[in-house]
């Protein structure tokens, strides 16, 4: 990533890098990996190698309530990882812990570690604000800022956090982000109009443009299509397929067809009964999870027989 080291991005006092990290960083700069995957048949060529997100023995709590138990999983770079499972099993909670949004809920706490290319985002000295700059998020309800125009919504992250920036540079990023979100042609003539005037599907794509404008490494999506109609949903799914060329994507969904259509890997979460913590049942390539899952539980869920 342009030679920037993770610990520099996280700021102050992270541990000195180990051999393994150095290796990973070199890998992410080097061409070969990109080239091999671009040569592979049927796989979209990554425009750049994004970062890997790895959860290790993650336990999440709301006060005394144990919400998610002992999750170990890897969210692979430049792939879409879908998190599926019944309501209340902790998918969204887990997703929010990945960019340290979980701790914004009063009383919420995290045990275990979540590593972005080997650096623990929960380590002491890591600034949660810096983590969220690298790991962006798109929410269930489209939530453009109601006081801002379409342009300012996309540029919000830059305006808030990047200091002074030249106008044409900003214009360029806004246009690129809107094109990336497949929204440019629909809004290019009314960039000054309020973002809340768009349709639900357009608003959600606006939110995706806003999230990508600050060029994060990872994009987390929390049921991004649940408030949208099927046409808008399809547009977002296509977009997700495009976005994985540049970003690592994790998406929570209740729609199993969506997981099957849009994701490369699928993680199935479940809970034994309500009041018990949710846990990861299994994770694997999407077609395997849907056709020959290793666990009976998963098979029951994906084929529609619950419990």
């Amino acid at each position, binding site marked *: 990533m342009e030679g920037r080291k993770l610990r520099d991005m996280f700021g102050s006092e992270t541990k000195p890098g180990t051999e393994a990290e150095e290796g990973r960083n070199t890998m992410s700069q080097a061409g070969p990996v990109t080239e091999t995957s671009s040569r592979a048949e049927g796989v979209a060529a990554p425009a750049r190698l994004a970062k890997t997100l790895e959860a290790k023995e993650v336990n999440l709590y709301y006060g005394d309530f144990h919400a998610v138990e002992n999750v170990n999983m890897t969210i692979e770079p430049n792939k879409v990882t879908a998190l599926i499972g019944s309501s209340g099993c902790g998918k969204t909670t887990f997703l929010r812990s990945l960019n340290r*949004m979980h701790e914004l809920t*009063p009383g919420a706490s995290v045990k275990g570690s979540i590593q972005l290319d080997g650096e623990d985002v929960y380590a002491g000295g890591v600034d949660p604000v810096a983590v969220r700059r690298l790991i962006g998020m798109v929410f269930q309800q489209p939530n453009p800022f109601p006081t801002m125009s379409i342009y300012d919504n996309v540029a*919000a992250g830059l305006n808030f956090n990047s200091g002074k920036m030249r106008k044409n540079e900003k214009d360029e990023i806004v246009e690129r982000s809107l094109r990336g979100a497949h929204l440019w042609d629909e809004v290019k003539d009314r960039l000054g109009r309020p973002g*809340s005037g768009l349709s639900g599907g357009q608003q959600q794509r606006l939110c995706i443009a806003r999230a990508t404008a600050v060029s994060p490494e990872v994009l987390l999506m929390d049921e991004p299509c649940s408030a949208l109609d099927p046409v808008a949903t399809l547009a977002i799914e296509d977009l997700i397929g495009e976005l994985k060329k540049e970003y690592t994507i994790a998406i929570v969904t209740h729609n199993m067809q969506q997981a099957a259509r849009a994701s490369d890997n699928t993680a199935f979460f479940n809970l034994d009964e309500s009041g018990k913590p949710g846990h990861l049942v299994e994770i694997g390539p999407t077609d395997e999870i849907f056709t020959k899952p290793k666990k009976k539980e998963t098979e029951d869920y994906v084929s529609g027989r619950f419990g």
Partner: protein
Amino acid sequence: MTPPPAQAATLSTRSLLSGEGSRGGSLPSWAPWGAFVGALAFCGLVEAALGWFTIALMVVFGALVAILAIYAWSRPIEGARRAKDRAVTMAIVAAFGVAMAPLVSLLYEVLTRGARGISWEFFTSDARGVVGGGGAAHAIVGTLIITACAVVIAVPIGIMAAIYMNEYGRGPLRRALTFFVDVMTGIPSIVAGLFAYALFELFFGPGIRMGIMGSIALTVLMIPIVIRSAEEVLKIVPNHLREASYALGTPKWKTIVKVVLPTAFAGLVTGVMIATARIIGETAPLLVTTGVVDSLNTDPFQGRMQNLAVYAYNEYRSPGVMKQASYDRAWAAALTLIAIVMILNVIARLVYRRYKTEIR
């Protein structure tokens, strides 16, 4: 109430649709007005016959009779449910009328009496060295200066306190603050005045009178109102907007400055205007802090300063040689005060309409 199935089958669909106990008819559209006017006339006649006719009694009894009348009229034609609906509607409209009556009467009195005292001189000259004449320019200017100073002090403190309470505060400290803000809302205004007087007396000695003292007293009254209204407005800024901002890697303070406050702007302005309107007519705390004076003073840090409420009070208390002229000026001052409050309200509404954000 539910008829047995056998009976239900015999009822026609038409009678089921028009409701229980109804003959399927409905009253003419003028029925509520008709009932009200009829009831008024009836009560007026009865009272006249008994020999103790007054308009107020006629209206009060008329409203009560109208409620009964519309029920009795509607019951056999429209059925029980719609009759009750009509009676309750009538009762609610009557209650609204009762609530509005004093307000309308007050406005009428202030307008008719105040208009007599309004003149060019009233707005342009002060009352220095004038016997039984002069204007209220010094009081108008004083009111504006004292209130403006109070607003300048109270609004930042109030809004920042509200931000603390809504965005940062947690646990016992927050609860204690909420409690004390509630207590402060109920402080009698004279206590605020005495507080300001005592505070300044510590530094400047007894008998001190300054415009800014009045502003401090008004600030004490205004801060809790601003906090309360700002807190309510901040509370309705949806959390998903804050989260959207955090997810872009925005620190909390910047999220508040760039997202929360702009979203709440229209509501904050309305709250400030309401608080301003609430304090601009205060009399008691200003009597003990800014004092009574006849000449124009534009320096809030030096000497006594007149304001409209105290001016009105004083014109009535010590009318001087031409009593009626003094009384007229007192009413004119009241009218001016109401006009200022109304202008503030109109501005607040315009700002609200211009800047309100659709919050889902």
